[in-house]
């Protein structure tokens, strides 16, 4: 279990530019959950994931991952990343190696994977994101946007963290790139692995998460199931977010058809409308 207790983060505390990014925030995330963290720009999402992953020490409060207090105790980085790690926004800007193999192997070497096992773990990570052996000797800088993003994700999952956080995993990608990342995320979900992702794309939050945490001005304003959040259109709009496609359609059609179901696919909508037409 990932536990955040009374976390507060204040930037530039003794200046007139003092900014309280997180205010007394507490939450628990359990293993195997699919959690979406949403909120508008500047709401504190990025600060929250930095604190969660032990990259930023909170001003007050503590982070406990599987009974390991990473705020109070000085836990080595290579131990923390085995529990929790992050794929940051635009992760391809962190590339430095000549080949995809070296880029992905960096994380494995950092946590002390033995030399003869490195190639196996690198290949496993690449396979998980839908890339094969032919990519090993390619330059990561010469890949397409979607491929770069997948290599970046592979370079983190090679560590095999129990809790994986993805910050805007599909931002700045074209349709093909987005689809490949979504299919990786769906694959991870199907394996029952924990997934925490931060997104501005409400359709992704709606389709991929079962629990949704909405952050506004450094505090949690909603923390429950995703479906119920999008049923509360007033709250969604109040915190500056928009309804995803399917809840929006539902909201419109409910005016004419009060028994319109919770659809997550086009087939569901078409089936319902066909049934109505026939009857």
């Amino acid at each position, binding site marked *: 279990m990932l536990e955040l207790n009374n976390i507060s983060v204040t930037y530039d505390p003794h200046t007139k530019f003092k900014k309280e990014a997180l205010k007394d925030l507490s939450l628990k995330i359990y293993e195997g959950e699919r959690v979406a963290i949403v909120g508008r720009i500047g709401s504190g999402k990025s600060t929250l994931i930095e604190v969660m992953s032990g990259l930023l020490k909170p001003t007050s409060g503590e982070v406990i991952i599987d009974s390991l207090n990473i705020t109070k105790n000085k836990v080595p980085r290579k131990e923390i*990343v085995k529990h929790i790690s992050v794929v*940051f926004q635009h992760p391809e*800007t962190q590339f430095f190696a000549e080949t995809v193999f070296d880029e992905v192997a960096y994380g494995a070497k950092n946590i002390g994977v033995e030399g003869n096992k490195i190639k196996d773990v690198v290949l496993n990570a690449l396979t998980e994101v839908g890339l094969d052996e032919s990519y090993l000797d390619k330059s990561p800088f010469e890949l397409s946007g979607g491929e770069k993003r997948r290599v970046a994700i592979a370079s983190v999952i090679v560590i095999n963290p129990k809790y994986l956080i993805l910050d805007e995993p599909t931002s700045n990608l074209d349709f093909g790139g987005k689809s490949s990342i979504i299919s990786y995320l769906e694959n991870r979900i199907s394996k029952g692995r924990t997934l925490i992702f931060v997104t501005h794309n409400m359709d992704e939050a709606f389709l991929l998460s079962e629990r949704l945490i909405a952050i506004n001005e450094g505090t949690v304003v909603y923390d429950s199931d995703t479906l119920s959040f999008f049923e509360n259109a007033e709250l969604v709009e109040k915190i500056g977010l928009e309804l995803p496609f399917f809840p929006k359609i539902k909201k419109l059609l409910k005016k004419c058809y009060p028994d319109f179901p919770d659809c997550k696919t086009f087939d569901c909508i078409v089936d319902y409308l066909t049934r109505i037409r026939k009857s």
Partner: protein
Amino acid sequence: MAKFYFGQFQYTQSFFHKLNPTLKIILIFYLVILLFFLKTIQSYLIFLIFTVLLVVLSKVSIQSVLSSFKPIIFLLLFTLFFQLFFTPGKVVVNLKVLKITQEGINISIYIAIRLIILTMLTFLLTSTTTTTDLAMGFRNVILPLRVFRFPVEELSLMISISLQFVPILFEEADRIMKAQMARGADFESGNLFVRAKSFLPVILPLILNAFNRADQLAMAMESRGFILGMKRTSYRVSKFGKNEVIAIVFVALFTILLFFLEVRFHA
């Protein structure tokens, strides 16, 4: 965000923030030169007190002033060690292999105070002047060189852009460091060589991203009509008022005071 880097501009309101940047650069440069002419400990101490007073009056964060000394500690200790033990003169302490001389002690004290004052003066200039003002001030200082066909405008633009890139590069470095730490990178343990090597995955993407950014900036400037070597007008106008006169008078009086101290105490 909470960390200050050396000389970062600080948004406080003080006499120094309002001072004409051109005059500020000239006065600071003058004070630095003046410092190298001093020969008595009395003058050095008065100069140190004067500089501390200036820093206090500038209302910058004390924490940032103290942290500005971090980069020079090694240089300071290195210089002090050599001056203290290898300056010939009257031996005060004899440690067989190493000898401390009276002259060595004196020079060490002078150098320490000089380095501290130099750091504080540089800090004072950059922490109370925005990068745009700094570039404009520098442009005005080197403006007379235009007579010799020196590319003043281009050089000041280059300096202005470079200075504005500094905070961006720091933020970028922080972002890349965090991304590499998320992949298990450890920048704090190991010996000096190991630690230096561990920064390679930060430096390479940082340089690469900086080049990309510079390329984008060049294209953005050209698309907005920038042509190299064209005569340009300036939106900002340097003002010269009461504050500037006060600053000049104050520095002049300080020079006279130092002159008297030098005459009085120089053996």
